[in-house]
Protein backbone atom coordinates (compact mmCIF):
# COMPACT_ATOMS: atom_id res chain seq x y z
CA UNK A 1 0.00 0.00 0.00
CA UNK A 2 2.95 2.27 -0.48
CA UNK A 3 1.38 4.04 -3.44
CA UNK A 4 -1.75 4.61 -1.37
CA UNK A 5 0.27 6.24 1.39
CA UNK A 6 2.35 8.25 -1.05
CA UNK A 7 -0.66 9.71 -2.84
CA UNK A 8 -2.42 10.42 0.43
CA UNK A 9 0.55 12.32 1.75
CA UNK A 10 0.79 14.40 -1.40
CA UNK A 11 -2.86 15.30 -1.71
CA UNK A 12 -4.32 15.63 1.76
CA UNK A 13 -3.44 19.27 2.38
CA UNK A 14 -5.39 20.52 -0.60
CA UNK A 15 -8.36 18.37 0.29
CA UNK A 16 -8.24 19.61 3.86
CA UNK A 17 -8.28 23.24 2.80
CA UNK A 18 -11.24 22.73 0.49
CA UNK A 19 -13.07 20.83 3.20
CA UNK A 20 -12.56 23.70 5.59
CA UNK A 21 -13.81 26.26 3.11
CA UNK A 22 -16.80 24.12 2.27
CA UNK A 23 -17.73 23.40 5.85
CA UNK A 24 -17.12 26.99 6.80
CA UNK A 25 -19.56 28.10 4.15
CA UNK A 26 -22.11 25.60 5.35
CA UNK A 27 -21.84 26.62 8.96
CA UNK A 28 -21.78 30.30 8.09
CA UNK A 29 -24.85 30.10 5.95
CA UNK A 30 -26.96 28.00 8.25
CA UNK A 31 -25.90 29.34 11.59
CA UNK A 32 -25.83 32.85 10.26
CA UNK A 33 -28.95 33.00 8.18
CA UNK A 34 -31.34 30.16 8.85
CA UNK A 35 -32.97 31.59 11.95
CA UNK A 36 -33.60 34.93 10.29
CA UNK A 37 -34.82 33.18 7.21
CA UNK A 38 -37.29 31.06 9.10
CA UNK A 39 -38.55 34.11 10.92
CA UNK A 40 -39.24 35.91 7.70
CA UNK A 41 -41.89 33.33 6.93
CA UNK A 42 -44.44 35.31 8.85
CA UNK A 43 -43.79 38.38 6.77
CA UNK A 44 -44.17 36.35 3.61
CA UNK A 45 -47.43 34.85 4.77
CA UNK A 46 -48.74 38.29 5.53
CA UNK A 47 -47.77 39.42 2.11
CA UNK A 48 -49.52 36.46 0.54
CA UNK A 49 -52.69 37.44 2.29
CA UNK A 50 -53.00 40.40 -0.01
CA UNK A 51 -52.87 38.23 -3.14
CA UNK A 52 -55.75 36.50 -4.93
CA UNK A 53 -56.60 33.33 -2.99
CA UNK A 54 -55.91 30.86 -5.80
CA UNK A 55 -52.45 32.25 -6.31
CA UNK A 56 -51.79 32.36 -2.61
CA UNK A 57 -52.93 28.79 -2.24
CA UNK A 58 -50.63 27.55 -4.99
CA UNK A 59 -47.65 29.31 -3.56
CA UNK A 60 -48.65 28.64 -0.02
CA UNK A 61 -48.15 24.94 -0.48
CA UNK A 62 -44.56 25.53 -1.27
CA UNK A 63 -44.06 27.63 1.81
CA UNK A 64 -43.59 24.62 4.03
CA UNK A 65 -40.84 23.34 1.88
CA UNK A 66 -39.22 26.66 1.38
CA UNK A 67 -39.21 27.71 5.00
CA UNK A 68 -37.73 24.59 6.42
CA UNK A 69 -34.27 23.49 7.25
CA UNK A 70 -34.37 21.27 4.22
CA UNK A 71 -35.35 24.05 1.88
CA UNK A 72 -32.67 26.36 3.10
CA UNK A 73 -30.08 23.61 3.17
CA UNK A 74 -30.89 22.72 -0.40
CA UNK A 75 -30.72 26.36 -1.40
CA UNK A 76 -27.11 26.55 -0.30
CA UNK A 77 -26.37 23.24 -1.92
CA UNK A 78 -25.66 24.77 -5.30
CA UNK A 79 -22.63 26.48 -3.81
CA UNK A 80 -21.52 23.49 -1.74
CA UNK A 81 -21.73 21.41 -4.87
CA UNK A 82 -19.58 23.89 -6.75
CA UNK A 83 -16.80 23.73 -4.20
CA UNK A 84 -17.19 20.00 -3.79
CA UNK A 85 -17.05 19.47 -7.53
CA UNK A 86 -13.87 21.50 -7.83
CA UNK A 87 -12.28 19.62 -4.95
CA UNK A 88 -13.26 16.21 -6.31
CA UNK A 89 -12.12 17.11 -9.81
CA UNK A 90 -8.81 18.31 -8.45
CA UNK A 91 -8.30 15.00 -6.62
CA UNK A 92 -9.15 12.97 -9.70
CA UNK A 93 -6.89 15.00 -11.94
CA UNK A 94 -4.05 15.20 -9.46
CA UNK A 95 -3.80 11.53 -8.58
CA UNK A 96 -4.38 10.07 -12.01
CA UNK A 97 -2.25 12.39 -14.05
CA UNK A 98 0.57 12.87 -11.56
CA UNK A 99 3.13 10.76 -13.37
CA UNK A 100 2.01 12.06 -16.71
CA UNK A 101 2.45 15.68 -15.64
CA UNK A 102 5.73 15.21 -13.82
CA UNK A 103 7.08 12.99 -16.58
CA UNK A 104 7.90 10.04 -14.40
CA UNK A 105 5.65 7.38 -15.89
CA UNK A 106 8.72 5.26 -16.54
CA UNK A 107 9.63 5.35 -12.88
CA UNK A 108 6.31 4.07 -11.61
CA UNK A 109 5.47 1.71 -14.46
CA UNK A 110 8.72 -0.25 -14.22
CA UNK A 111 8.19 -1.06 -10.59
CA UNK A 112 7.20 -4.67 -9.81
CA UNK A 113 3.57 -3.79 -9.39
CA UNK A 114 0.72 -4.47 -11.77
CA UNK A 115 -0.93 -1.43 -13.30
CA UNK A 116 -4.18 -2.66 -11.88
CA UNK A 117 -2.77 -2.39 -8.44
CA UNK A 118 -1.37 1.06 -9.07
CA UNK A 119 -4.78 2.23 -10.27
CA UNK A 120 -6.49 0.62 -7.33
CA UNK A 121 -4.21 2.19 -4.76
CA UNK A 122 -4.65 5.62 -6.33
CA UNK A 123 -8.39 5.05 -6.37
CA UNK A 124 -8.43 4.05 -2.72
CA UNK A 125 -6.41 7.12 -1.78
CA UNK A 126 -8.88 9.32 -3.67
CA UNK A 127 -11.86 7.68 -2.00
CA UNK A 128 -10.22 8.02 1.39
CA UNK A 129 -9.84 11.75 0.82
CA UNK A 130 -13.39 12.18 -0.44
CA UNK A 131 -14.84 10.12 2.39
CA UNK A 132 -12.88 12.01 5.01
CA UNK A 133 -13.95 15.34 3.57
CA UNK A 134 -17.57 14.32 3.45
CA UNK A 135 -17.42 12.86 6.91
CA UNK A 136 -16.60 16.35 8.13
CA UNK A 137 -19.31 17.91 5.99
CA UNK A 138 -21.94 15.40 6.97
CA UNK A 139 -21.10 15.64 10.64
CA UNK A 140 -21.37 19.40 10.45
CA UNK A 141 -24.65 19.07 8.59
CA UNK A 142 -26.12 16.73 11.17
CA UNK A 143 -24.99 18.86 14.07
CA UNK A 144 -26.50 21.93 12.47
CA UNK A 145 -29.64 19.99 11.77
CA UNK A 146 -29.98 19.00 15.40
CA UNK A 147 -29.33 22.53 16.49
CA UNK A 148 -31.44 24.52 14.10
CA UNK A 149 -34.15 22.38 12.64
CA UNK A 150 -37.57 22.62 14.20
CA UNK A 151 -39.16 19.38 15.41
CA UNK A 152 -40.02 16.79 14.32
CA UNK A 153 -36.52 15.71 13.41
CA UNK A 154 -35.97 13.27 10.62
CA UNK A 155 -32.27 12.54 10.86
CA UNK A 156 -32.46 9.85 8.22
CA UNK A 157 -33.52 12.36 5.61
CA UNK A 158 -30.95 14.89 6.71
CA UNK A 159 -28.25 12.30 6.37
CA UNK A 160 -29.40 11.33 2.92
CA UNK A 161 -29.43 14.93 1.82
CA UNK A 162 -25.92 15.47 3.17
CA UNK A 163 -24.72 12.35 1.40
CA UNK A 164 -25.82 13.80 -1.92
CA UNK A 165 -22.68 15.92 -1.86
CA UNK A 166 -20.50 12.82 -1.69
CA UNK A 167 -22.37 11.20 -4.52
CA UNK A 168 -22.17 14.30 -6.68
CA UNK A 169 -18.47 14.57 -5.93
CA UNK A 170 -18.01 10.98 -7.07
CA UNK A 171 -19.44 11.90 -10.46
CA UNK A 172 -16.98 14.75 -10.85
CA UNK A 173 -14.14 12.65 -9.55
CA UNK A 174 -14.89 10.07 -12.22
CA UNK A 175 -15.04 12.74 -14.93
CA UNK A 176 -11.71 14.13 -13.81
CA UNK A 177 -10.02 10.72 -13.51
CA UNK A 178 -11.25 9.86 -17.00
CA UNK A 179 -9.88 13.15 -18.35
CA UNK A 180 -6.59 12.62 -16.50
CA UNK A 181 -6.01 9.19 -18.02
CA UNK A 182 -7.13 10.00 -21.53
CA UNK A 183 -5.76 13.52 -22.02
CA UNK A 184 -2.45 13.84 -23.70
CA UNK A 185 -1.44 16.68 -21.47
CA UNK A 186 -2.78 18.22 -18.28
CA UNK A 187 -1.33 21.68 -17.83
CA UNK A 188 -2.78 22.87 -14.59
CA UNK A 189 -4.71 20.77 -12.11
CA UNK A 190 -6.40 23.65 -10.33
CA UNK A 191 -7.23 25.40 -13.60
CA UNK A 192 -8.80 22.34 -15.19
CA UNK A 193 -10.58 21.36 -11.98
CA UNK A 194 -12.07 24.84 -11.67
CA UNK A 195 -13.21 24.67 -15.27
CA UNK A 196 -14.88 21.28 -14.74
CA UNK A 197 -16.55 22.48 -11.54
CA UNK A 198 -17.79 25.65 -13.16
CA UNK A 199 -19.06 23.75 -16.16
CA UNK A 200 -21.20 21.72 -13.78
CA UNK A 201 -22.34 24.87 -12.05
CA UNK A 202 -23.25 26.45 -15.35
CA UNK A 203 -25.25 23.43 -16.46
CA UNK A 204 -27.09 23.53 -13.17
CA UNK A 205 -27.86 27.22 -13.47
CA UNK A 206 -29.08 26.63 -16.99
CA UNK A 207 -31.37 23.90 -15.82
CA UNK A 208 -32.79 26.14 -13.14
CA UNK A 209 -33.35 28.94 -15.58
CA UNK A 210 -34.89 26.91 -18.34
CA UNK A 211 -36.72 24.38 -16.26
CA UNK A 212 -36.52 21.70 -18.93
CA UNK A 213 -36.74 18.33 -17.26
CA UNK A 214 -34.77 16.68 -20.01
CA UNK A 215 -31.82 18.92 -19.21
CA UNK A 216 -31.51 17.22 -15.88
CA UNK A 217 -29.83 14.27 -17.52
CA UNK A 218 -26.78 16.39 -18.16
CA UNK A 219 -26.85 18.29 -14.90
CA UNK A 220 -24.56 16.39 -12.54
CA UNK A 221 -25.42 18.67 -9.63
CA UNK A 222 -28.99 17.47 -9.78
CA UNK A 223 -28.49 13.72 -10.09
CA UNK A 224 -28.69 13.45 -6.35
CA UNK A 225 -31.00 16.28 -5.42
CA UNK A 226 -30.65 17.38 -1.82
CA UNK A 227 -34.06 18.97 -1.63
CA UNK A 228 -35.78 15.89 -2.95
CA UNK A 229 -33.92 13.88 -0.38
CA UNK A 230 -35.26 16.09 2.36
CA UNK A 231 -38.83 16.23 1.22
CA UNK A 232 -39.38 12.83 -0.31
CA UNK A 233 -36.87 10.86 1.66
CA UNK A 234 -35.30 9.40 -1.46
CA UNK A 235 -33.35 10.44 -4.48
CA UNK A 236 -35.15 10.29 -7.75
CA UNK A 237 -34.31 6.84 -9.04
CA UNK A 238 -34.03 7.87 -12.69
CA UNK A 239 -31.39 10.49 -12.16
CA UNK A 240 -29.58 8.76 -9.37
CA UNK A 241 -29.20 5.84 -11.73
CA UNK A 242 -27.81 8.07 -14.45
CA UNK A 243 -25.30 9.43 -11.96
CA UNK A 244 -24.25 6.00 -10.78
CA UNK A 245 -23.96 4.58 -14.28
CA UNK A 246 -21.97 7.58 -15.47
CA UNK A 247 -19.59 7.33 -12.53
CA UNK A 248 -19.01 3.61 -13.03
CA UNK A 249 -18.67 3.82 -16.80
CA UNK A 250 -16.09 6.59 -16.61
CA UNK A 251 -14.06 4.78 -13.96
CA UNK A 252 -14.12 1.53 -15.89
CA UNK A 253 -12.99 3.32 -19.04
CA UNK A 254 -10.23 5.05 -17.11
CA UNK A 255 -9.14 1.73 -15.61
CA UNK A 256 -9.05 0.02 -18.98
CA UNK A 257 -7.02 2.78 -20.49
CA UNK A 258 -4.61 3.06 -17.57
CA UNK A 259 -3.83 -0.64 -17.56
CA UNK A 260 -3.52 -1.02 -21.28
CA UNK A 261 -2.00 2.07 -22.81
CA UNK A 262 1.48 2.06 -24.28
CA UNK A 263 3.84 4.41 -22.48
CA UNK A 264 5.96 5.98 -25.20
CA UNK A 265 9.39 7.42 -24.53
CA UNK A 266 9.55 11.07 -23.53
Amino acid at each position, binding site marked *: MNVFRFELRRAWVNAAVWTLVLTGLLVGLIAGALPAFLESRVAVENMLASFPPAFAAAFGLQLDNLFSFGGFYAFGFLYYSLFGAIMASAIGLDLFSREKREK*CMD*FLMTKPCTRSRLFLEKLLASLALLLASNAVFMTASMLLYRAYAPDPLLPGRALLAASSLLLTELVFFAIAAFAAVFAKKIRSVSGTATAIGFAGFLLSALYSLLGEEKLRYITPFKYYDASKAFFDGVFEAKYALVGAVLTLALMIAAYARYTRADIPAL
Partner: protein
Amino acid sequence: MGYAIETEKLTKYYGKARGIVDVDLTVEEGEIFGFIGPNGAGKSTTIRTLLGLIKKSGGSAAIFGMDCEKDKVKILSEVGYLPGEVFYYDNMRAIDLLRYSASFYKKDCTKRIKELADALSLDLNKKIEDMSLGNKKKVGIVQGLLHAPRLIILDEPTSGLDPLMQRTFFDLIQRENERGATVLFSSHILGEVQRICDRVAIIKEGRIVDLRSIDDLRKNSYKKVSFTTEQPVASFSLAGARQIAQDGLQTSFLYNGDINALLQKLSSLSLVNADVSEPELEEIFLHYYEEEAAAK
Protein backbone atom coordinates in the same frame (compact mmCIF):
# COMPACT_ATOMS: atom_id res chain seq x y z
CA MET B 1 22.36 -21.32 -17.24
CA GLY B 2 19.46 -19.88 -19.12
CA TYR B 3 19.29 -16.68 -21.01
CA ALA B 4 18.73 -13.45 -19.15
CA ILE B 5 16.86 -12.01 -22.12
CA GLU B 6 15.51 -13.93 -25.07
CA THR B 7 13.38 -12.45 -27.79
CA GLU B 8 12.11 -14.17 -30.90
CA LYS B 9 10.79 -12.25 -33.86
CA LEU B 10 9.80 -9.42 -31.57
CA THR B 11 7.82 -6.85 -33.50
CA LYS B 12 6.15 -3.57 -32.66
CA TYR B 13 4.26 -1.30 -35.01
CA TYR B 14 3.04 2.12 -33.95
CA GLY B 15 -0.05 2.17 -36.13
CA LYS B 16 1.47 1.84 -39.55
CA ALA B 17 4.90 3.14 -38.62
CA ARG B 18 7.46 0.47 -37.88
CA GLY B 19 8.99 0.36 -34.43
CA ILE B 20 10.92 -2.91 -34.53
CA VAL B 21 10.58 -5.92 -36.81
CA ASP B 22 11.57 -9.54 -36.16
CA VAL B 23 14.09 -8.76 -33.46
CA ASP B 24 15.91 -11.87 -32.23
CA LEU B 25 18.08 -11.23 -29.22
CA THR B 26 19.70 -13.48 -26.67
CA VAL B 27 21.54 -12.04 -23.71
CA GLU B 28 23.32 -14.50 -21.46
CA GLU B 29 23.29 -14.20 -17.74
CA GLY B 30 26.29 -12.38 -16.41
CA GLU B 31 27.30 -10.65 -19.60
CA ILE B 32 27.36 -7.01 -20.50
CA PHE B 33 25.45 -6.66 -23.72
CA GLY B 34 25.59 -3.59 -25.88
CA PHE B 35 22.79 -2.48 -28.09
CA ILE B 36 23.77 0.12 -30.64
CA GLY B 37 22.20 1.87 -33.57
CA PRO B 38 21.37 5.32 -34.87
CA ASN B 39 18.57 7.48 -33.50
CA GLY B 40 15.17 6.12 -34.29
CA ALA B 41 16.52 2.64 -35.01
CA GLY B 42 14.38 0.94 -32.37
CA LYS B 43 16.58 0.62 -29.32
CA SER B 44 14.15 2.32 -26.97
CA THR B 45 11.23 0.46 -28.50
CA THR B 46 12.88 -2.90 -27.85
CA ILE B 47 13.69 -1.99 -24.28
CA ARG B 48 10.26 -0.55 -23.53
CA THR B 49 8.67 -3.72 -24.87
CA LEU B 50 10.83 -5.86 -22.62
CA LEU B 51 9.79 -3.77 -19.64
CA GLY B 52 6.10 -3.90 -20.43
CA LEU B 53 5.80 -0.18 -21.02
CA ILE B 54 4.48 -0.81 -24.53
CA LYS B 55 2.68 -3.80 -25.95
CA LYS B 56 4.33 -5.86 -28.64
CA SER B 57 2.60 -6.42 -31.95
CA GLY B 58 4.10 -9.85 -32.54
CA GLY B 59 6.77 -12.33 -31.55
CA SER B 60 7.86 -13.25 -28.04
CA ALA B 61 10.02 -11.79 -25.32
CA ALA B 62 11.22 -13.47 -22.15
CA ILE B 63 13.39 -12.43 -19.23
CA PHE B 64 14.89 -15.15 -17.02
CA GLY B 65 12.67 -17.59 -18.83
CA MET B 66 9.47 -15.74 -17.89
CA ASP B 67 7.20 -14.12 -20.46
CA CYS B 68 7.50 -10.35 -20.40
CA GLU B 69 3.79 -9.74 -20.53
CA LYS B 70 2.45 -12.52 -18.35
CA ASP B 71 5.01 -12.38 -15.58
CA LYS B 72 5.76 -8.71 -15.72
CA VAL B 73 5.62 -8.12 -11.99
CA LYS B 74 7.92 -11.02 -11.12
CA ILE B 75 10.37 -9.94 -13.74
CA LEU B 76 10.37 -6.29 -12.68
CA SER B 77 11.27 -7.16 -9.12
CA GLU B 78 14.59 -8.35 -10.48
CA VAL B 79 15.18 -5.66 -13.07
CA GLY B 80 16.65 -2.21 -12.60
CA TYR B 81 15.88 0.37 -15.28
CA LEU B 82 17.63 3.63 -15.95
CA PRO B 83 16.02 5.69 -18.72
CA GLY B 84 17.83 8.27 -20.79
CA GLU B 85 15.91 11.26 -19.49
CA VAL B 86 15.44 11.39 -15.76
CA PHE B 87 12.40 13.08 -14.24
CA TYR B 88 10.95 12.59 -10.83
CA TYR B 89 8.18 14.00 -8.71
CA ASP B 90 8.31 17.65 -7.78
CA ASN B 91 9.11 18.74 -4.30
CA MET B 92 10.85 15.54 -3.23
CA ARG B 93 14.24 15.01 -1.72
CA ALA B 94 16.44 12.33 -3.22
CA ILE B 95 16.17 10.17 -0.12
CA ASP B 96 12.38 10.38 -0.15
CA LEU B 97 12.20 9.24 -3.74
CA LEU B 98 14.68 6.44 -3.17
CA ARG B 99 12.78 5.21 -0.12
CA TYR B 100 9.56 5.30 -2.12
CA SER B 101 11.24 3.36 -4.90
CA ALA B 102 12.62 0.83 -2.41
CA SER B 103 9.16 0.30 -0.92
CA PHE B 104 8.16 -1.59 -4.06
CA TYR B 105 10.75 -4.33 -3.58
CA LYS B 106 10.38 -6.89 -0.91
CA LYS B 107 13.77 -6.31 0.59
CA ASP B 108 15.50 -3.78 2.76
CA CYS B 109 17.51 -1.49 0.57
CA THR B 110 18.66 1.15 3.05
CA LYS B 111 22.23 -0.11 3.12
CA ARG B 112 22.49 -0.29 -0.62
CA ILE B 113 21.09 3.22 -1.00
CA LYS B 114 23.72 4.58 1.33
CA GLU B 115 26.53 2.64 -0.36
CA LEU B 116 25.54 3.73 -3.83
CA ALA B 117 25.01 7.35 -2.82
CA ASP B 118 28.45 7.42 -1.20
CA ALA B 119 30.06 5.85 -4.23
CA LEU B 120 28.53 8.56 -6.40
CA SER B 121 28.94 11.41 -3.89
CA LEU B 122 25.25 12.14 -3.96
CA ASP B 123 23.67 14.41 -1.37
CA LEU B 124 20.51 12.54 -0.45
CA ASN B 125 18.89 15.40 1.36
CA LYS B 126 18.73 17.74 -1.55
CA LYS B 127 15.56 18.28 -3.53
CA ILE B 128 15.74 16.57 -6.89
CA GLU B 129 14.35 19.52 -8.83
CA ASP B 130 17.14 21.70 -7.48
CA MET B 131 19.84 19.35 -8.69
CA SER B 132 22.04 19.63 -11.73
CA LEU B 133 21.50 17.14 -14.52
CA GLY B 134 24.46 15.06 -13.42
CA ASN B 135 23.13 14.75 -9.91
CA LYS B 136 19.65 13.94 -11.16
CA LYS B 137 21.19 11.13 -13.16
CA LYS B 138 22.97 9.93 -10.04
CA VAL B 139 19.59 9.68 -8.36
CA GLY B 140 18.41 7.67 -11.34
CA ILE B 141 21.40 5.36 -11.08
CA VAL B 142 20.84 4.71 -7.39
CA GLN B 143 17.14 4.24 -8.07
CA GLY B 144 17.91 1.62 -10.69
CA LEU B 145 20.39 -0.30 -8.60
CA LEU B 146 19.19 -0.09 -5.03
CA HIS B 147 17.41 -3.41 -5.05
CA ALA B 148 20.45 -5.32 -6.33
CA PRO B 149 18.70 -6.42 -9.54
CA ARG B 150 19.77 -9.45 -11.53
CA LEU B 151 19.29 -7.55 -14.76
CA ILE B 152 20.15 -3.93 -15.31
CA ILE B 153 18.72 -2.20 -18.36
CA LEU B 154 20.22 1.13 -19.32
CA ASP B 155 18.77 3.30 -22.09
CA GLU B 156 21.39 5.81 -23.25
CA PRO B 157 22.54 6.25 -19.66
CA THR B 158 25.43 8.65 -20.11
CA SER B 159 23.68 11.35 -22.11
CA GLY B 160 24.44 14.59 -20.34
CA LEU B 161 27.20 13.31 -18.09
CA ASP B 162 30.70 14.69 -17.95
CA PRO B 163 33.63 12.30 -18.69
CA LEU B 164 34.52 11.82 -15.03
CA MET B 165 30.95 10.94 -14.17
CA GLN B 166 30.84 8.59 -17.11
CA ARG B 167 33.92 6.79 -15.84
CA THR B 168 32.47 6.51 -12.32
CA PHE B 169 29.23 5.25 -13.76
CA PHE B 170 30.87 2.51 -15.79
CA ASP B 171 33.00 1.45 -12.86
CA LEU B 172 29.81 1.05 -10.88
CA ILE B 173 28.19 -0.97 -13.63
CA GLN B 174 31.20 -3.21 -13.88
CA ARG B 175 31.16 -3.82 -10.14
CA GLU B 176 27.51 -4.80 -10.39
CA ASN B 177 28.39 -7.12 -13.22
CA GLU B 178 31.12 -8.73 -11.13
CA ARG B 179 28.51 -9.26 -8.46
CA GLY B 180 26.63 -11.32 -11.03
CA ALA B 181 24.23 -8.88 -12.64
CA THR B 182 23.51 -8.98 -16.35
CA VAL B 183 23.60 -5.64 -18.11
CA LEU B 184 21.76 -4.57 -21.25
CA PHE B 185 22.97 -1.24 -22.35
CA SER B 186 21.74 0.78 -25.30
CA SER B 187 23.68 3.61 -26.78
CA HIS B 188 24.64 5.29 -29.94
CA ILE B 189 27.93 6.37 -28.47
CA LEU B 190 30.08 3.53 -29.66
CA GLY B 191 33.13 4.39 -27.63
CA GLU B 192 31.48 3.47 -24.35
CA VAL B 193 30.02 0.26 -25.73
CA GLN B 194 33.41 -0.73 -26.95
CA ARG B 195 34.92 -0.20 -23.55
CA ILE B 196 32.78 -2.46 -21.39
CA CYS B 197 30.57 -4.74 -23.44
CA ASP B 198 31.10 -8.43 -24.08
CA ARG B 199 28.80 -8.64 -27.03
CA VAL B 200 26.95 -6.14 -29.09
CA ALA B 201 23.91 -6.10 -31.36
CA ILE B 202 23.48 -3.50 -34.02
CA ILE B 203 19.99 -2.36 -34.87
CA LYS B 204 19.07 -0.26 -37.85
CA GLU B 205 15.63 0.73 -39.07
CA GLY B 206 13.95 -1.67 -36.69
CA ARG B 207 15.94 -4.74 -37.53
CA ILE B 208 18.97 -6.39 -36.01
CA VAL B 209 21.69 -6.34 -38.61
CA ASP B 210 24.48 -7.96 -36.64
CA LEU B 211 25.16 -9.65 -33.36
CA ARG B 212 28.76 -10.29 -32.39
CA SER B 213 31.19 -10.35 -29.58
CA ILE B 214 33.40 -7.33 -29.30
CA ASP B 215 36.56 -9.35 -29.68
CA ASP B 216 35.15 -11.01 -32.74
CA LEU B 217 34.38 -7.67 -34.26
CA ARG B 218 37.94 -6.61 -33.77
CA LYS B 219 39.53 -9.83 -34.90
CA ASN B 220 37.89 -9.77 -38.27
CA SER B 221 38.41 -6.16 -38.78
CA TYR B 222 41.07 -3.77 -39.64
CA LYS B 223 43.92 -1.86 -38.29
CA LYS B 224 43.99 1.79 -39.11
CA VAL B 225 47.41 2.74 -40.43
CA SER B 226 48.77 6.14 -41.26
CA PHE B 227 52.31 7.37 -41.65
CA THR B 228 54.25 10.43 -42.69
CA THR B 229 57.40 10.19 -44.80
CA GLU B 230 60.29 12.53 -45.54
CA GLN B 231 59.74 12.25 -49.23
CA PRO B 232 56.41 11.72 -50.92
CA VAL B 233 55.85 8.05 -51.59
CA ALA B 234 55.39 7.32 -55.27
CA SER B 235 52.69 4.75 -55.29
CA PHE B 236 51.99 2.79 -52.21
CA SER B 237 50.70 -0.73 -52.46
CA LEU B 238 50.45 -3.60 -50.03
CA ALA B 239 48.44 -6.81 -50.09
CA GLY B 240 45.59 -6.48 -47.61
CA ALA B 241 45.57 -2.73 -47.65
CA ARG B 242 42.40 -0.93 -48.67
CA GLN B 243 41.23 2.60 -49.15
CA ILE B 244 44.70 3.87 -49.59
CA ALA B 245 44.72 7.62 -49.40
CA GLN B 246 47.71 9.80 -50.01
CA ASP B 247 47.85 13.46 -49.15
CA GLY B 248 51.27 15.03 -49.68
CA LEU B 249 53.62 13.40 -47.24
CA GLN B 250 50.91 11.53 -45.41
CA THR B 251 49.53 8.15 -46.38
CA SER B 252 46.74 6.31 -44.69
CA PHE B 253 44.86 3.07 -45.26
CA LEU B 254 43.03 0.20 -43.64
CA TYR B 255 44.91 -3.04 -43.32
CA ASN B 256 43.65 -6.54 -42.87
CA GLY B 257 46.32 -9.15 -42.97
CA ASP B 258 49.52 -10.41 -41.40
CA ILE B 259 50.86 -7.81 -39.05
CA ASN B 260 54.46 -8.80 -39.79
CA ALA B 261 54.08 -8.08 -43.48
CA LEU B 262 52.74 -4.66 -42.57
CA LEU B 263 55.63 -3.85 -40.24
CA GLN B 264 58.16 -5.04 -42.77
CA LYS B 265 56.68 -2.81 -45.43
CA LEU B 266 56.62 0.15 -43.10
CA SER B 267 60.20 -0.30 -41.96
CA SER B 268 61.31 -0.28 -45.58
CA LEU B 269 60.23 3.33 -45.83
CA SER B 270 61.96 6.22 -44.13
CA LEU B 271 59.24 7.43 -41.78
CA VAL B 272 58.84 10.60 -39.85
CA ASN B 273 55.83 9.31 -37.99
CA ALA B 274 53.67 6.19 -38.04
CA ASP B 275 50.43 5.29 -36.37
CA VAL B 276 48.92 1.83 -36.22
CA SER B 277 45.74 1.65 -34.19
CA GLU B 278 42.57 -0.22 -33.56
CA PRO B 279 39.75 1.46 -35.40
CA GLU B 280 36.90 2.94 -33.39
CA LEU B 281 33.86 0.79 -33.20
CA GLU B 282 32.23 3.45 -35.30
CA GLU B 283 34.60 2.80 -38.11
CA ILE B 284 34.04 -0.93 -37.88
CA PHE B 285 30.36 -0.38 -37.78
CA LEU B 286 30.27 1.92 -40.72
CA HIS B 287 32.60 -0.37 -42.51
CA TYR B 288 30.15 -3.22 -42.20
CA TYR B 289 27.73 -1.16 -44.12
CA GLU B 290 30.18 -0.38 -46.84
CA GLU B 291 30.96 -4.03 -47.16
CA GLU B 292 27.36 -4.96 -47.39
CA ALA B 293 26.68 -2.26 -49.87
CA ALA B 294 29.70 -3.31 -51.91
CA ALA B 295 28.73 -6.96 -51.70
CA LYS B 296 25.35 -6.06 -53.14
